[in-house]
């Protein structure tokens, strides 16, 4: 029988990388930057975290400290994602390159970067471990509140997650608030809607684009970090992260550029992602492959539904994907 109490936490666990990726992409798109490099950024975020954790585990030995074990990979992840963000900005904002092509190149690069270091880290550092399994680090990441396990069903549904889950939700709520309610958010949206207007109003469009893309990339990078450290229990395997980055980008449209909606939408998608495990198929393994289509088919249906009722407020930022050059004429 379908067991919601076991299903829901697994859906949530699946949703966190999607939520972080989606929030990051939304922040970026609101400033007019369609960053198709997000899947690559999430790979880089993940592997940067892995490298940080790996080096720390190797060096610390007996002095393993839970706080540092979380801090070092997180900082490494943020740094790696930030560098990717800066690269994207330099190309698309400063050099006004085509955003789609730059994004795809970043994804090629980022996935390659992740898989290369994932596959060669041991050789490069000359360690003598058989595989990258950062179990101690992972334990630090997945620590739950001490009383969570005693809180019964409520504890299982809401308290059984590592800290990054709550961070992801907090980031989404904060991002929603900043975008909607603050002057910074207003100016950021103006840059994405109509950079010429924002510029003429004295807003530094370049600065806003750089900041929003870089912050967006760092948020998305955390999604990659969560995947390795929490979901995969610290075990890196090449290409395991899969297509989650692309789904995160699709989720942005699904949530009509609202990170607070993304909290629920990502859980829905997380659920769809693993639903095939809960649908009884008997001995026919092949059918499971068809059920795995669900998140993509639903995304397509949502895209269609959104295009059918076009409302002014639900449209993408008007200058999304376009470079801005003040002296264009």
């Amino acid at each position, binding site marked *: 029988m379908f067991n919601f109490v076991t299903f829901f936490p697994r859906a949530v666990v699946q949703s966190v990388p999607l939520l972080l990726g989606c929030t990051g992409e939304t922040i970026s798109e609101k400033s007019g930057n369609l960053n198709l490099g997000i899947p690559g950024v999430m790979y880089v975020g993940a592997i940067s975290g892995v490298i940080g954790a790996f080096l720390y585990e190797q060096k610390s030995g007996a002095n393993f400290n839970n706080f540092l074990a979380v801090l070092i990979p997180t900082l490494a992840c943020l740094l790696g994602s930030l560098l990717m963000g800066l690269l994207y900005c330099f190309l698309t904002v400063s050099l006004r390159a085509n955003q789609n092509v730059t994004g795809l190149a970043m994804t090629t*690069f980022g996935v390659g970067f992740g898989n290369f270091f994932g596959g060669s880290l041991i050789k490069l550092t000359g360690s003598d471990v058989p595989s990258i399994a950062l179990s101690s680090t992972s334990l630090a990441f997945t620590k739950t509140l001490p009383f969570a396990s005693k809180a019964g069903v409520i504890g299982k549904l809401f308290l059984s997650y590592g800290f990054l889950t709550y961070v992801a939700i907090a980031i989404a709520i904060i991002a929603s608030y900043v975008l909607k309610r603050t002057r910074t958010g207003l100016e950021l949206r103006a840059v994405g809607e109509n950079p010429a207007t924002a510029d003429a109003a004295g807003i530094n469009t370049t600065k806003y684009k750089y900041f929003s893309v870089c912050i967006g990339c760092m948020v998305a990078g955390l999604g990659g970090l969560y995947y390795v450290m929490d979901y995969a229990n610290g075990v890196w395997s090449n290409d395991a992260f899969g297509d989650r980055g692309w789904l995160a980008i699709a989720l942005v449209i699904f949530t009509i550029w609202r990170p607070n909606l993304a909290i629920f939408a990502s859980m829905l998608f997380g659920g769809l992602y693993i639903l095939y495990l809960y649908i009884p198929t008997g001995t026919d393994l092949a059918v499971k492959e068809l059920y795995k289509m669900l998140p*993509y088919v639903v995304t397509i249906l949502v895209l269609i539904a959104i295009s059918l009722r076009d409302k002014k407020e639900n449209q993408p930022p008007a200058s999304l994907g376009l470079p801005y050059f003040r002296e*264009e004429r």
Partner: protein
Amino acid sequence: MNSKKKEPLIHITKRKALTWKQEWLVRLAGILIALILCAVITTFTTHLNPFGVYAAMFKGSFGSPRKIWVLGKELAILLMVSVALAPAFRMKFWNLGAEGQVTVGTLATAACMILLGDKIPNGVLILIMLIAAIVAGALWAFIPALFKAKWNTNETLFTLMMNYVATQLTAYYIIKWESPKGSGNVGIINAHTEAGWLPTLAGQKYFLITIVAAIVTVVMFIYLKYSKHGYELTVVGESQQTARYVGIKVDRVIIRTLLLSGAICGLTGWLLVAGSDHTITTSLAGGRGFLGVMVAWLAHFNPIAMVLSGLLLVFMSRGAGEISTTYGLNPSYGDILTGIILFFVIASEFFINYQLHFRSSKGKEE
């Protein structure tokens, strides 16, 4: 607040149009700088001699007649995908679904080979495979095109999602057809009878693939540049309003162009299964759907120029394969190098269109 403002440090203006020779020199310079940077990075991360690495890459691509043929085949397949994307992109239809369109092409081809294998004459079988693959690829592009044409549904993500649907569909059939049972893969199809395998021409297995790709490329070049269809789709890409104003049926052009785009992808799938791999996996397209986007864009959607940009990327990936066997590095290293080169080529476009003025140099100029 009225403190004296400084003159900007760097000031950017649009430059006069360069000749195409100057443009290509800028791009070449970009690639050269990228190769130097790649060499430096290689030395630092892997402590290998960068020249050795490049020599190995060159050897991996051109080292033997067989390697050259493999390079040619890889280039041909990548070129087919890029050429397929060209009309869609020229129409500003961001088709990221070539991956899926190729995949369904491979699936349709494999299905015919498995189901009709020894039941009909080989020539007829190959023809049916061809038609099935083309129809499948065209269908996969038709669905997003229809919604784009009628309701302006976002095609970038629609086509992207269609890739995964194609992958899962293929995964489903792979389990259905797996041989031996439980192995999770299909193995070489018709290994004994070679039914549905493309013939070896001029003693070369890949000769036919290369020829097909060359023909498709040239035909597409002519189609885009000289045909009425090519003119129509360019107008639609530049301005749908203008297209309607002169009576071009925009939705029809979008659908027609994508049918063509998908059909060539399907044809590519046919070549992959019948002419090269003789099996089916979920990843036969191998990321070429995305790589093709970049090949096409780097060549400014000109099919002939795609031969060059395609060669660059194929060289990188073949070379990277060689490095991984020679030096025991992970083959993904090639993706990193490819990424770096792409960044530099993308950046070089800026220097073709814009000009920098520095504060200090200003006085001397004027």
